[in-house]
């Protein structure tokens, strides 16, 4: 089982796309999209890293096992981020007149 050698053209294509996406993410950050600015930034960064993973890191041409490893990494990263942030973001939902704003405090010492 010899390694798949990827033609140079593919690398060049990915490379150029990555550069374009970098310019795009800078440009987009100056549009006023409200909260969507953040989403756009994440979206573009994810696309870029997906391209790097699939082509530069050859995952597209590797066996399923590598794919599983990569997916596992992202899934557990997702768990860490989602659950930690979910706590913070849902604290204000609680019926309690006095908790919603507290998370914003700087206390005295």
């Amino acid at each position, binding site marked *: 089982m010899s390694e798949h050698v990827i033609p140079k053209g593919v690398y060049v294509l990915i490379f150029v796309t990555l550069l374009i996406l970098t310019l795009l993410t800078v440009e987009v950050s100056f549009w006023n999209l409200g909260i969507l600015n953040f989403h756009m930034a994440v979206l573009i960064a994810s696309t870029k890293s997906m391209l790097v993973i699939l082509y530069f890191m050859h995952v597209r041409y590797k066996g399923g*096992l590598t794919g599983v490893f990569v997916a*596992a990494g992202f899934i*557990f990263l997702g*768990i*860490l981020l989602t*659950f*930690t942030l*979910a*706590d*913070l*973001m*849902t*604290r204000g*939902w*609680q019926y309690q007149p006095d908790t919603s704003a507290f*998370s914003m405090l*700087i*206390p005295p*010492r």
Partner: protein
Amino acid sequence: MSNGGSTSQHNGAGENYLTAGYGLKSWLLTTDHKRIAILYLITISIFFALGGLFAVLIRLELLTPAGDLFSSDTYNKLFTMHGLVMIFFFLIPSIPAVVLLGGVDTGWTFYAPYSEAYSNTAVGLTAIGVFITGFSSILTGLNFIVTIHKMRAPGLTWFRLPLFVWAHYATSLIMLLGTPVVAISILLVFLERVFGIGIFDPALGGDPVLFQHLFWFYSHPAVYIMILPSMGVISEIITCFSRKRIFGYSFIAFSSLAIAILGFLVWGHHMFVSSQSIYAGMVFSILTMMVAIPSAVKVFNWTATMYKGTIIYQTPMLYVFGFLGLFTVGGLTGLFLGTLGLDVHVHDTYFVVAHFHYIMVGGAIMGYLGGLHYWWPKITGRMYSEAWAKLSAVIIFIGFNLTFFPQFLVGYLGMPRRYHVYPPEFQIYHVLSTAGASVLAVGYLFPLVYLLWSLAYGEKAGPNPWQAKGLEWTIPSPPPTYNFDVTPVVTEEAYDYESMPREAQFVIEP
């Protein structure tokens, strides 16, 4: 007692890993994994005794409601050391060394901001220790996972692997995924202390609850690091002494994976009253319930394995019985804690203390002792005294329950953890518990004595005293320096005991 060595090819003349090369240096610099294992065994036994010593001192202090034996600071150091030594001696024995030098008193949970602002002792030093050990446990896990994926013996398909290996695979997964997070949070604590930036310290704008998230993201899965290897051991022993294949192999195998994966989704159950959002609490609670299911599946499959077997009451099997009962109690009380409305009351009381001792002492340590007795002949080539071993297994079981059952009761009554003085009405439970701990201590002393004794005077064990299945039993005891002369080829499933000829079933009489 006749010796299973009659069928052995072991001639005592060949070189084995224990005799190949003498001298301290050859041991300390060894790369032979069996020697490493022996060193590891000795180290963790010493640390266990040390942790036990701290526990005995704790119990003595708690005999009376007043703080008469130690000052509060001493007591705080005691339980911190006890927790740290006991928790991390399972993982890697080098953390305690660092800790013992420093003298930490934050509790093993290192809660910020307490651990930063007020604990004037060696948190920084501990942090570095955790970092280093963290890195080595990452490498261990990495090594193990890759080995299993890529370097199994020919014919050893996934479903022919001993369940012990599955359990270790799951454990490694946890180490790989969890350790980096705790490492980075410790780094953040370190930066906070050195540069005075408010990452977790509210006085500077930080949030101590974030620290708890990062800490438990690792530390909950870490509790499964402690129990999974023991679960693997149970699968090995129960099949051997039931002379029968395991019931539901694939369910046991996959439940280990399920535990490892789901284990990453429940950390918030340590934070139900931490001012975490109650909605996050609910999600964590429901997931906690789910992570209990694979453990339940395991317990039932082990029980079913005994059905229509040929049960032999050898010491390791007694520990399995103990494990099954005590782990079940510990696990079920874990459900109490995972139940939101109830945990509010019992959180940080002795109910929690009882829960985790049932699982860790009743489960993990029983598994450890069972495994120690099971593989002792393989490791050392000697048999221990069966009668003494049985006696101490029984003593340990009784002492254990006497120590920790009263703690459930006093916990529900409201006795908080980490208290060195307490209201007098709780005394009766503490007296019972201390009495139990003394019995337990005696029970633990016995094996120390008879196992050491067997090294010199025990009967020669032969390669396979239990007529057990598994590759390690096909080679002489103790194993030679190069495990296998030829790479073994595996053609059968694990635990295929029934196909053994009847006369070979068992040589040692129970």
